[in-house]
């Protein structure tokens, strides 16, 4: 499938997203209508029913209503995310069109110098420089737009995945430690991720909602600390429902943690947690989507970019002066299509007790 590229960060038909938003909004409405109908059935028709069967019947309707409420909410929030995405990408598209026009005009001026400029060599230098500067500026602006498009994509994916994991998929997994086979699969799987990254064959965006990567990240030391912090805040009543909270992890200056992770991964019989070592620094948010007495449903979203620069970087030291010994090889491979930047988004949901 063709995807947008740095040459055209405004590529794509937002009409497709608008149609999706319309369908999802219609689904939310039909869920809400069904909720009204079921509430009418539950309250008007059965308030005088008696017996265990009646209790079960009402209870069942209640569960259906709750599930429909979650679906409707997920649809509404995802549709709102799509609206933000469409607005942002349409702005990017307008800017990209202007920049492409700027590049085309400057290129035309370079290719077709004026008669005066051709007649006078000195005069030709200024317009040529002006055109080249204009092209450079437009290309730089295009790179910024590409980053903004990438960010917009990531944001929409995080919003929708959060709803998917937290509200649509009702089979919430309680956090359980991985067994040996899972841990082995997690660590071996990391080599596959790194291999596709090194080979330049990894998709630009990768996302994981189940499998070994969410499992292994959920078990990481950082997440255990974060989970303990969330539980403490839940006990203290210090967490607001459905408010994404940042819990970023920055290892760029935390050499000790990085190396202890690497040592764990390399030497200990538990295989450590190589996926987390691979991910290293990451953006993280958690959101408490529901609280039921002493149980809370929490959605975690991890975002991370795997880049050649990151691979070459010596943690804690300035990249400009100190690089890993393999940097020349990585940079050479990068020029031939390997080690191209890829983004990872990992989302999972847990039920924590407090």
């Amino acid at each position: 499938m063709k995807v947008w590229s740095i040459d055209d960060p405004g590529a794509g038909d937002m009409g497709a997203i608008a149609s999706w938003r319309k369908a999802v909004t219609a689904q939310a409405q039909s869920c809400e209508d069904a909720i009204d109908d079921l509430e009418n059935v539950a309250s008007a028709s059965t308030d005088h029913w008696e017996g265990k069967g009646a209790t079960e019947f009402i209870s069942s309707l209640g569960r259906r209503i709750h599930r429909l409420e979650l679906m409707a909410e997920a649809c509404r929030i995802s549709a709102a995310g799509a609206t933000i995405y469409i607005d942002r990408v349409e702005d990017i598209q307008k800017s990209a069109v202007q920049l492409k026009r700027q590049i085309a005009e400057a290129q035309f001026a370079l290719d077709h110098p004026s008669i005066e400029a051709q007649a006078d060599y000195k005069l030709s230098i200024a317009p040529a420089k002006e055109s080249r500067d204009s092209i450079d500026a437009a290309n730089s602006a295009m790179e910024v737009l590409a980053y903004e498009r990438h960010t917009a994509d990531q944001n929409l994916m995080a919003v929708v995945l959060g709803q998917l994991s937290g509200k649509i998929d009702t089979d919430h997994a309680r956090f359980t430690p991985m067994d040996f086979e899972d841990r082995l699969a997690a660590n071996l799987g990391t080599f596959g991720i790194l291999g596709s990254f090194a080979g330049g064959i990894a998709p630009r965006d990768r996302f994981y909602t189940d499998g070994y990567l969410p499992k292994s990240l959920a078990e990481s030391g950082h997440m255990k600390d974060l989970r303990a912090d969330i539980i403490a805040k839940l006990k203290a009543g210090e967490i607001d429902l459905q408010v994404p909270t940042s819990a970023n992890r920055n290892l760029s200056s935390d050499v000790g943690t990085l190396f202890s992770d690497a040592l764990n991964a390399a030497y200990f019989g538990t295989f450590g947690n190589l996926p987390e070592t691979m991910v290293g620094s990451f953006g993280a948010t958690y959101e408490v989507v529901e609280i039921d007495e002493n149980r809370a449903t929490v959605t975690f979203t991890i975002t991370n970019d795997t880049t050649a620069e990151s691979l070459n970087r010596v943690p804690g030291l300035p990249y400009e002066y100190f690089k890993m010994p393999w940097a020349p090889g990585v940079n050479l491979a990068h020029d031939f299509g390997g080690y191209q930047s890829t983004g990872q988004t990992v989302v999972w949901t847990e039920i924590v007790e407090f």
Partner: protein
Amino acid sequence: MDNTIRVDPAELAGVANELGNVAPRLTVSSPPDVSACQSSGVTRVLNAFTQELETNRQDIQEVLQVTADGVIKTANDFSEFDAELTAEFARVMPR
């Protein structure tokens, strides 16, 4: 407390009819193709969301339909109510 719902069979038929009307209304038109947005990550996530939504919708629809059928069966033969409806509920309730 026994397993009986003590209610007029005619009322059960009315409830079944209402439940039967709810389920079809959950159906929406087939989701649009979003690949034209030319972002492979976004396309995959939106498709995954749509797919899960449809799975949930079908599941709820099936449960409501089974419940409505069970209520209708009860209304038609009130004497078999306990065994029939309770068994149906036991099958679908945990979901």
